[in-house]
């Protein structure tokens, strides 16, 4: 399994994601955002950071990077795409996931571990979790408040496309405590917390490690 970590100008969790993927047994490579293809990757990760300095809105400019056409084609082919934090913002701006990430309700940047409930194991990134399982991973964002219109929120819940929900405290005012969602095909997942920063016990939690262990994903699947 080959996993590509896309690097945008301003990505800063790319090395962490690369490390977590390697630790999970994947072949990991960086792909520069100017690349027109994903260099043969089976799985794509859009990492955390502040690409393009969050100009205009987080993720708004990155969406026009050449590599995003390849990411959209990868997603449309039903292949796995994971957006973490800034990567989640990019996926929403690119309309590969519905809704948007607005500035945190409390206005402050939030950087601390949060507890989430895994709501769905029907994605390639959560197949190794049990629905209802509680996991702890850090958040580190200023614009992580998930918002969408009520119809979209209802639909996400009805179709069981909320993947992670905050429990025991909502760090950013996200609607319906949503921390992560998936697309209709369940191959594209975005979440605000950082699984790559919770991939080893030494980091305080290894609850995120399993998100990078996509054993069932083979080339061309």
């Amino acid at each position, binding site marked *: 399994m080959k996993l590509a970590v896309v690097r945008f100008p301003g990505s800063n969790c790319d090395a962490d994601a690369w490390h977590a993927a390697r630790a999970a047994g994947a072949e990991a490579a960086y792909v520069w955002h100017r690349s027109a293809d994903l260099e043969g990757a089976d799985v794509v990760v859009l990492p955390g950071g502040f690409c393009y300095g969050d100009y205009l809105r987080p993720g*708004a400019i990155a969406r026009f990077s050449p590599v995003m056409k390849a990411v959209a084609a990868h997603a449309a082919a039903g292949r796995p795409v994971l957006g973490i934090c800034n990567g989640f913002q990019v996926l929403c701006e690119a309309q590969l996931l519905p809704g948007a990430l*607005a500035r945190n309700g409390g*206005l402050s940047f939030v950087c601390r571990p949060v507890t989430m409930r895994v709501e769905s194991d029907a994605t390639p990134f959560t197949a190794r979790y049990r629905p209802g399982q509680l996991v702890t991973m850090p958040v580190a964002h200023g614009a992580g408040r998930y918002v969408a219109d009520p119809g979209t929120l209802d639909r996400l819940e009805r179709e069981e496309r909320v993947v992670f929900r905050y429990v025991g405290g909502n760090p950013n005012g996200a609607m319906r405590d949503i921390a992560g969602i998936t697309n209709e095909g369940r191959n594209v997942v975005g979440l605000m917390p950082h699984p790559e920063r919770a991939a080893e016990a030494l980091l305080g939690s290894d609850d995120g490690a399993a998100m990078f262990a996509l054993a069932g994903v083979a080339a061309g699947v």
Partner: protein
Amino acid sequence: MSRFLARVRVMPRTSILDPQGQAVSHALGELGFAGVGEVRIGRAVEVLLDAASADAAREGALRMCERLLANPVTEDYVLEGVEPAR
């Protein structure tokens, strides 16, 4: 072709909490400004563009709003004006 200036105002949707506006409203109250109610903070965008006519420039600016300048999930936009650029 002539050069036009399009002025766009982008504001957070009224249904969406605006924490920046809340913080500024609070700060204005702290400074002693009486009677300050809700404050909302958006952004102003000015685009210089070449177009065949003011109508064409207006149409172009509206497409820019839809595609990039505003996020349709969280923001509303107003094209405040298109005028010949000096």
